[in-house]
């Protein structure tokens, strides 16, 4: 083998190893005490994160960890919305309406009709069962942890994110660097699975679903405004119902005490 081939082979092995390690975690874990986050850090070697975790533990009582597979932002927000809907029938119906409406909105934007209809149908059929209480919480979380079933739920979140960005292309296109068009950006970064969400993806998903979120940062330097937390959209009046914890490269869901 040549050096280049060797390097590719090595890289493949590394990716495989990371993938296998990640697959040992559930896609969507159970709610666990927030104190677990404190245990992740050593008071002496990483005092900043340790102290921040302790401080957050005053506000947040629980954490639900999400697998780090590149879908974590979309998955975390979706599970957050789902939990709100499971407790509130009115909101569940409202969210179903939003989702049903997205099918036509996507087609109008020129998304390929056959596959788009299929994804929308699978998603809304699944979500109708939640709204109509034809499923149990146990089954819902089983589905969320089933690779192939949950892929369909995630792709729907990705498509509507892409749809929202495209509907407001004049607002978002200027943020895309390296000369790509918004359509190119959406197809390679948003509509493709296992690609991390950046600020466009975050904004797009929040506005496409109509659910505001708060992101708590472990590290101030990572926060867009240099603060400890960030509400999206920035001008939302109430504290968002869904909170995520951001640790470099990863999102989990956290719950107020």
């Amino acid at each position, binding site marked *: 083998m040549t050096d280049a081939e060797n390097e590719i082979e090595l890289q493949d092995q590394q990716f495989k190893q990371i993938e296998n390690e990640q697959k040992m975690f559930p896609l969507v874990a159970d709610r666990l005490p927030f104190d677990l986050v404190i245990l992740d850090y050593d008071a002496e070697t990483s005092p900043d994160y340790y102290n921040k975790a302790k401080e957050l533990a005053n506000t947040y009582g629980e954490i639900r960890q999400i697998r780090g597979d590149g879908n974590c932002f979309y998955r975390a927000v979706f599970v957050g919305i789902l939990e709100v809907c499971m407790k509130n029938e009115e909101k569940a119906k409202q969210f179903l309406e939003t989702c049903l409406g997205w099918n036509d909105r996507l087609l109008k934007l020129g998304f*390929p009709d056959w*596959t788009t209809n299929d994804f929308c149908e*699978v998603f809304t059929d699944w979500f109708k069962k939640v709204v109509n209480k034809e499923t149990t919480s146990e089954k819902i979380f089983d589905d969320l942890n089933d*690779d192939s079933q949950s*892929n369909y739920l995630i792709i729907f979140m990705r498509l509507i994110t892409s749809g929202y960005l495209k509907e407001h292309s004049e607002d978002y296109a200027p943020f895309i660097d390296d000369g790509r068009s918004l359509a190119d950006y959406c197809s390679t970064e948003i509509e*493709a*699975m296992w690609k991390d969400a950046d600020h466009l993806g975050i904004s797009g998903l929040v506005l496409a679903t109509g659910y505001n979120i708060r992101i708590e940062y472990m590290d101030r330097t990572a926060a867009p405004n240099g603060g400890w937390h960030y509400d999206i959209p920035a001008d939302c009046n109430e504290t968002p119902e869904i909170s995520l914890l951001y640790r470099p490269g990863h999102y989990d869901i956290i719950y107020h005490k």
Partner: protein
Amino acid sequence: MSDASRRRLLKELNQLQTESPPGIIIDKNSPDSDLKQWRIGVVGAKGTLYEGEVFTLQFTFGSQYPFSSPEVMFVGDTIPAHPHIYSNGHICLSILADDWTPALSVQSVCLSILSMLSSAREKKHPMDDAIYVRTCSKNPSKTRWWFHDDKV
């Protein structure tokens, strides 16, 4: 094959069999019962270098389809000579690798390949054909493609 992938593949197969677009031939007996591997005929479009020629594409689907790309290559006795198609049937097309999105389908892949054939100006394999065919993996999705020019 997961239930979700199977459901989607059955739906795609049904659609292709009832209303396949011009230039795409689906053999009714083609997919095996587990739907994992399909063979689809493509016919070179009128007015192109491949007019009327029939080639066979082989699709192999993994359990994560349509979230992961299918493996697609030309098989059989006649492999089209084309600047993006190697003589072993491997195809250098970005949507089959990095640019795959789940919004694509068997039909859209076939149409992209037909359009790639249509835009050829010369019937010849890529310049590095001899060395590629000798050294590549059997599975084209293991190849790190270098996409030169999407227009050809």
